């Protein structure tokens, strides 16, 4: 059974159709990266999958239509890591990660020992158990992102939705976070659907890419098929060189060549 099966999914926000006829099929343990320029509809599509915006078309999570599932049922299947998570500065890291257990508790139920243990295990899986007692406000950007991921892991869903998970991190922290996601995927069989800005990272970590532009599907397939100089130029308006190596493709931005005829200055 597919974890996500989308057919002709559209989303209208404030009268504007920001996602239009998008389809994808994501199998258990797979990783699809949504790429595309700003405003392409990546985040909105993720929000539709998480049941946070109404949509038209068909969107199934583990065989059930998202719109027919209750809030808590969706939250048990899908954990979301937003692009700009709200970080309550005075909350402890452990308390924050325990919030991930919310869909597994009763309406207003309190977490028990088992939930605290699950939160600690999630922190351990992300190598940050030593941060458990720290205030969120005292963490570095990389540590904070791990705490957010730990909350998503503690949520214990099948699908992890990542919205630009590394956009605020330096290159080292970016790699560490994505390696952690890759190992979670390998060890726990997590399925990943991620909106990603960095095309090189998207191509190296995801199995398949879905290029959106103007809310529509512009291309999809294996990274080498989608990350071509021509497609990137057409949809991003960017001048790039695509380098193929053993680890996959790398997309290197190049300064557009200045027309030689034009007088300089």
């Amino acid at each position: 059974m597919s974890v996500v099966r989308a057919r002709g999914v559209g989303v209208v926000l404030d009268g504007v159709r920001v996602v239009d006829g998008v389809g994808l099929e994501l199998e258990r343990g797979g990783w699809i990266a949504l790429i595309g320029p700003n405003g392409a509809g990546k985040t909105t599509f993720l929000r539709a999958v998480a049941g946070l915006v109404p949509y038209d078309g068909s969107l199934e999570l583990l065989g059930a239509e998202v719109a027919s599932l209750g809030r808590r049922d969706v939250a048990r299947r899908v954990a979301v890591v937003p692009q700009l998570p709200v970080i309550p500065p005075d909350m402890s890291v452990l308390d924050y990660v325990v919030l991930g257990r919310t869909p597994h508790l009763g309406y207003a139920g309190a977490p028990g020992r088992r939930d605290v243990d699950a939160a600690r295990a999630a922190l351990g899986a992300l190598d940050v158990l030593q941060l458990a007692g720290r205030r969120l406000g005292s963490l570095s950007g990389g540590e904070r992102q791990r705490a957010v991921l730990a909350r998503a892991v503690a949520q214990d869903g099948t699908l992890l939705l990542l919205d630009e998970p590394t956009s605020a991190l330096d290159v080292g922290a970016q790699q560490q976070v994505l390696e952690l996601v890759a190992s979670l995927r390998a060890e726990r069989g997590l399925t990943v659907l991620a909106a990603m800005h960095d095309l090189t990272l998207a191509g190296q970590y995801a199995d398949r890419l879905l290029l959106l532009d103007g809310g529509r599907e512009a291309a999809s397939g294996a990274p080498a098929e989608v990350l071509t100089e021509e497609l990137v130029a057409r949809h991003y308006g960017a001048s790039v060189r695509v380098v193929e190596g053993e680890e996959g493709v790398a997309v290197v931005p190049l300064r557009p060549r200045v027309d030689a005829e034009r007088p300089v200055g």
Partner: protein
Amino acid sequence: MTEADVRARLARRADRPLPGISVAWALGVAGFVLLAALLGLALGPVGLGTERVARELLSHVPGLGVESPLTATEDAILWELRAPRVALGLVVGALLASAGAAYQGVFRNPLADPYLLGAAAGAGLGATLVIAYDVGDPLGVDLRPVAAFAGAILGVAAAYGLGRSVGGGRSTATLILAGVTVAAFLTAVQTFLQQRNTETVQEVYAWILGQLETSGWSDVAIALPYAVVSTALLVWHRRLLDVLAVGDDEAASLGVAVARVRLVVVAAATLGTAAAVAFSGLIAFVGIIVPHAIRLLVGTSYRAVLPLSLGVGAGFLVLTDLICRTAIAPAELPIGVVTAFLGAPFFAVVLRTTRTVGP
């Protein structure tokens, strides 16, 4: 017992909810409430003595064989005058502090107080109408608390309705703005009525500054059911307030029906606030300083802040009322003046000593 039984028992224990507050804090706050109540009963223009009041209280516990040392007059002062007033102080303090904590959580706004959505302006208008037009008590009941209660509920309902119609209940900023709008309008009407009826200005003013004078146990009896429903709902929702700390969107992605939780919490807090306002007027600052003081001591989780606010708010208001009754006896200070007089410097210290004052 088989191994399977042991496992099942261990599994049940692992699922049992963990308490949000330590036993020490719970006992400490319970002790504070008892001490405040005892002082409230013993001290006043006629000093009854804490020890004698304690013995009087113990004389009502069967099986202890303690004899009451109080005279008949003292007994009447204690049970007919002071005890209802202390009880009302406990109820109103608990309601205002817990409603304040709940509002701060549900609006993620450290400056939110129980009057944020127009409860004060609505209650003020209701009370002013009754006082200025000297309605009296045509039904045999004092109409001031009824009008204040109805005004508070209608004020918040109008603000909530306006906020929802604009922002679909999704944005806390829209709700707060709607509250400001409704409050400004109701205050304008109230001020106009007051201007037209200058002979009652002093009475209206006294009501607005708050007082805990009771007409006996009946006020407490009327306020108590509202207090029980309001505080039970708020305490029940305390963990959901923790989830709301990560914002509406993330709370929704964690499976919380945000708009419904907000409506229930606002409705419960409003019910409690309206009941408090009806019998005590507008008492400032309790809803802000008590929850913030508790956050400083035990951290920001509402699993601790809400239940502890109930106790500390109750004890704090009884002690404040004690100052009102004794500072310039036999005259009394308005309690709203004393809470603000004590609360403002305290809050200034809080602001100076903490990095952030988070909800």
